[in-house]
């Protein structure tokens, strides 16, 4: 498909209607606005998406002496937490977690079998859980209440039953 088109061209300059030209300009402006908004939200305000954290062996990660060998909360003196979660068909371990309001929690989630999802309702925590990888996001919980964390990726017949709860106490 490399032939340079030969003769037969009546005219070679591009004709663009003035309205359409303005429309295209407007489109470019809109795009720049969107891109700027996303960039500011991502890099200045810190609304980030997951990024590679660690590779693990899905067959052994939950039986070794690593943090996923004993999943659960780790509390730190400054009031923040790390929460290690193991996802498997069709449950999360742990599936009930309690923290105190105002604390910052960093979630580390991995899977020992198939892909799962990890979405905490009414928050921006939403991650794909992929065997062999550790998904990580950090979130501060100011509002007391009960937050369900649910599996959002099809993982087999009882996928709809797979969830846990995070309780934020006053």
């Amino acid at each position, binding site marked *: 498909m490399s032939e340079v088109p030969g003769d037969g061209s009546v005219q070679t300059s591009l004709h663009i209607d003035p309205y359409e030209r303005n429309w295209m300009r407007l489109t470019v402006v809109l795009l720049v606005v969107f891109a700027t908004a996303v960039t500011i939200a991502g890099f200045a305000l810190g609304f980030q*998406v997951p990024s590679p954290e660690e590779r693990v062996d899905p067959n052994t990660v939950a039986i070794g002496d690593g943090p996923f060998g004993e999943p659960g909360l780790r509390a730190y003196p400054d009031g923040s937490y790390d929460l290690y979660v193991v996802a498997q068909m069709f449950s999360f371990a742990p599936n009930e977690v309690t923290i105190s309001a105002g604390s910052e929690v960093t979630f580390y989630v991995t899977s020992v079998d*198939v892909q799962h999802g990890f979405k905490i309702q009414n928050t*921006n925590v939403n991650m794909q859980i992929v065997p062999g990888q550790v998904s990580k996001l950090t979130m501060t919980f100011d509002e007391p209440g009960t937050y369900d964390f649910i599996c959002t990726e099809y993982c087999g*017949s009882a996928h709809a039953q797979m969830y846990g709860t995070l309780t934020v106490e006053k």
Partner: protein
Amino acid sequence: MLTTPTYELTKSEKSFISQHLLFAFIALAIGSLFGPLQAFEFSGVDFYPLLEPVIQSYYQGLTLHGVLNALIFTTFFITGFLTLTTIYGLKRPLKYPLLNRIGFWTMVVGLLMAAVPILLNEASVLYTFYPPLQANVFFYFGLTLVVVGSWIEGYGFIFTWREWRKENPGVRTPLMTFGGLITMVMWQLATLGIAVEILTMLIPWALGLIDGADPQLARTYFWFTGHPLVYFWLLPAYVSWYAMLPKQAGGKLFSDSLARIAFWLFLLLSVPLGFHHQFVDPGVPAGWKYIHAILTYAVFFPSMITAFTVIASLERAGRKRGGKGWLGWIPKLPWNDPSVSAQLLAGILFFFGGIGGITNASYNINLVIHNTAWVSGHFHLTVASASALSFMGISYWLVPYLRGRRLWSRKWAQIQTWLWFVGMLIFSNAMHVLGLLGAPRRTPLGEAPYVPDEWSGHLLRTSIGGAILFVSAYMFVFNIARTWWSKKLLAGPDEEVEIPVAESVHPAQETPAKLDWWTPWLIGTVALILVAYGPQLIEQIGNIDLSSPGFRP
């Protein structure tokens, strides 16, 4: 001026295209049974137990729905329709008709090969087949053959075009053929992702030749193809919107040049964006996700050109038909032609789909809706409306043309297009709202324990929309079936069905020659793919870890 010889498709060309459509419509008929069942399940009306032992679970049904509607119906319809736009546009027969036949039958064999394990509940892995969920190996063989068959048909179009080019140096490729060629060339490049995924990882793994898969790398391969797949669905609808619909509406194409620029930009920008489906993946660096997010915004540009050019063409048509004032041209369009109304309504639904699409593409905002019902709501506006409803509209002239029979009922066809529109507005709005409230997709929400009362009204609306869509889908299938085997042959020249070919306001021959020149665009396309994907592919393949054994759902 150039003379335009007329070309009448031969009987065997018509029947070859018809065979494509037959498989497409059967896939749509079966696939569309399950969508409504899913939607009913959401409000607690679960028909699946009644279907045992034929269909054993919600997920076997969902696999059938996704594979038959989104992969089979589309691919067979598209290859058939683009066969027509190739030969009718170029006014010459296929260069190697046998090659295209081989391509077609390869797709059929692939379809049957994949269908058996799906029907035996041996491949309930959904149409994305993410490992470590594992299907019977014939599912993967079958899908491979469908893709390879579509490649072969694409080569057939390219050889035909090259031959035409030799015979017609310096003539602009007719727009309908041009759009079809871009679609197929894009598809060749795009499907390299799943080809590599299936051939180097999933088949050896399903056969037990390797112990494990690398699920993260598999996702990266999959979405290399998965995003441009949506353009494979959409571009053939654009071919109709640009190169046919203006004529059906009684007008001309507003700008041939901009139509071509839009198609080139879709070729350039379809592939290097796939990470926007992986914003929440753990194994892809945030920086690359960000780059793909920005590139995704760039595709907004040819989409906006398309919106402008198509609407401007329709406006001219409406004004020519006596429309006055700002919006007075809209009611003057030939809404009573079901082929036109289907495509106009598809375009309106697509407008909402586009707005939602910008949200999805927006990097961190994606976290709000990822893997929720919002996403399903979104792609029923795009693939299940912009594409599927347009394809239905095309069928309303194409089937009578190919079969030489009168459309069984125009009235039904009109009602059908509006029912799809109304049903889809209700269905997709409810799904979008559910997604914002946190409802996951791919989940039988009727049985999920965490569903709050707050969702129930929207779940009910999903079911109502689904019921309306079901009626619409079957009115289409019934109308087409009655037409297909009708005894009422088209009688005489005044009943003749014409293939709509839109002229452009400025004749195509005035379009700059460089807009008909492939080399620079192909180089640019490949270069952009290398830049956007190369480093991550090298890194992810370099760190491949085949340690995930398979799980049969």
